[in-house]
């Protein structure tokens, strides 16, 4: 995994609460065996009309959204299905961080594993940032994971919480599967002492 580096970017605002993973990527795009072209499927049902043409008023289709690395979303972003295609699609489109007041559990875990940084702000700070980036879609935020801080366009600096291990993995580009594989001796020991018999 690539280490997470400092981001400075303008921000796409999609402030709806409870955006579920079926909206992030509808199920019909899950009939794949690889990860190719998922950026095109991101928010497909909001982004394209019945003929597949981009809807000009949807935020991802606006010229000022292009090249953005940061999404500001509403509360409980990523609820619903466990599909990792959701963070894959967000990353494929170009996002490196999503800012919300809360993330659904499985989405948060899937995002971290794909170096997509979930940033939780308190509702008041979130509202201030949303107002600034809505007023000026070219306004830039800076995200510094090492410092655990977001700098708003007006210069306000907010710190955000992150699990220490998640932070370490993102900053160092640590591969979680590799981390687990290194525990082989512990896992083998556990399997020998586990009292519950295997019946599957």
């Amino acid at each position, binding site marked *: 995994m690539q280490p997470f580096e400092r981001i400075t970017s303008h921000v796409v605002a999609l402030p*709806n*609460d*409870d955006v*579920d993973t*079926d*909206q992030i990527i*509808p*199920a*019909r795009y*899950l*009939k*794949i*065996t*690889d*990860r190719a072209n998922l950026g095109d499927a991101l928010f497909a*049902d909001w982004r394209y009309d*019945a003929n597949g043409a981009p809807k000009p008023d949807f935020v991802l289709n606006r010229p000022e959204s292009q090249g953005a690395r940061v999404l500001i979303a509403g*509360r*409980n972003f990523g*609820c*619903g*299905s*466990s*599909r*990792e*295609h959701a*963070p894959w699609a967000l990353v494929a489109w170009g996002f490196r961080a999503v800012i919300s007041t*809360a993330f*659904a*559990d*499985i989405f948060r*875990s*899937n995002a971290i*594993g*794909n170096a997509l940084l979930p940033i939780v702000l308190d509702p008041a700070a979130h509202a201030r940032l949303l107002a600034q980036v809505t007023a000026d879609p070219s306004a830039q935020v800076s995200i510094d994971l090492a410092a655990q801080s977001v700098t708003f366009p007006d210069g306000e600096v907010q710190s955000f919480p992150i*699990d*220490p*291990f998640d932070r*370490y993995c993102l900053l160092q580009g640590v591969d*979680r*599967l590799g*981390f*687990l*594989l290194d*525990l*082989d001796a*512990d*896992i083998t020991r*556990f*399997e020998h002492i*586990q*009292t*519950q*018999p*295997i*019946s*599957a």
Partner: protein
Amino acid sequence: MSRPRTLFEKLWDAHLVRLETPDTPAVLYIDLHLVHEVTSPQAFAELRARGLRVRRPDRTVATMDHSTPTTPREQVPGGDRRAALPMLDPQGAAQLAQLEANCREYGIELYDLSSERQGIVHVIGPELGLTQPGKTIVCGDSHTSTHGAFGTLAFGIGTSEVAHVLATQCLLQQKPKTMEIRVDGALPRGVTAKDIILAIIAKIGVAGGRGYVLEYTGSTIRSLSMEERMTICNMSIEAGARAGMIAPDDTTFAYLAGRPFAPQGAAWAAAVERWRALATDPGAQYDASISIDATTLAPMVTYGTNPGMGVPIDGRIPTADETAERDALDRALSYMDLQPGAAVQGRTIDVVFIGSCTNSRISDLRAAASVLRGRRIASNVRMLVVPGSSAVKQQAEAEGLHEVFRAAGAEWREAGCSMCLAMNGDSVGPGEYAVSTSNRNFEGRQGQGARTFLASPLTAAASAIAGAIADPRPYLES
């Protein structure tokens, strides 16, 4: 004497390969890994790219459910169990072929479309006795919470974590908090497990369970069958919870006894003794608790675009003044083309779907059939009945339920996820209204532009007859 512990804490403690430290999450051992065609191909590709093996193929079981056709086999030329396959779209067919190849290469048991054990992954796990109290169970599917009905710690994971479990049988996990949801009292007539869980989600919201494992307790829960308990635990994720669970009891043991993978003979007695000790100890503390009075519940139906937007069947859609979430209500009602303050009952519908990992088991089909027997569905309604597994289908046919559904004008299909998420060609048309026994009413979930009302099998069957959202109670046998 040791500190009293909850059911969750006992399972958590028993599966720690490594304890949580200030710098690292816990390493949790997984007893059973269920695999399906949609969320596994990229995980197997990861293993292949790294030259890794599957650590415990003996703890891994695969089936095909999401992309599979449910077209009745007798309508397919040839009529054999494989005959439906060529009807798949090429992408779906490629997924199934990839799963077959992966299971063959890595030595994983696969219940494919030709197997009598095939079905929705959360239906067949319990049915085969793979799901047993005390186990940790994962699957690349959020409705893995279903298995918590047996006193397991069961949760959905992403595809990267599917690879983690395939390669190491372990997951890195932060310890969740616990919430007790206590449901007491006798259920009124016509009120089912589905109505209980829809009422719970309406009460705590779609993020109310975020960060928590829910434990359902109380006299109402104790009185439920295993299939009803599965319906409740299944939708824990719709409240945002990591998992849902119910302590095992005699109902659990009676369900499991004699199932193909359940312990036999002396091992069975030992297992039951071990399982009995899993229940939450008196005096154990939850991080949060809520309680529900079952006697006040009515059949529930959703009106919006998330499972928390539900009301009693004789209720009204809230107005902007009656909700704290005006924007969400506006957006939901705009998508649904419904008016604030309107009654839900009587709203004309186009489709009824009985199926999904929430409500496709034999008791669900019996409930729907009890309403439909001797009646016809409305001429404006298309109704699909999709059994949760090949075994459920066989059982239903042995009981003649398929004849009840067909005589009523419904389609009787092969087992699979089907119209719950519309990946396999079964879908609700743009702008159409469906009453569905599934778990999600998200925008486009049942097809692009589809509008979903979630309800119980009784309510869905009654609505099919009425051609509109209907209260099931007048249709029940006295």
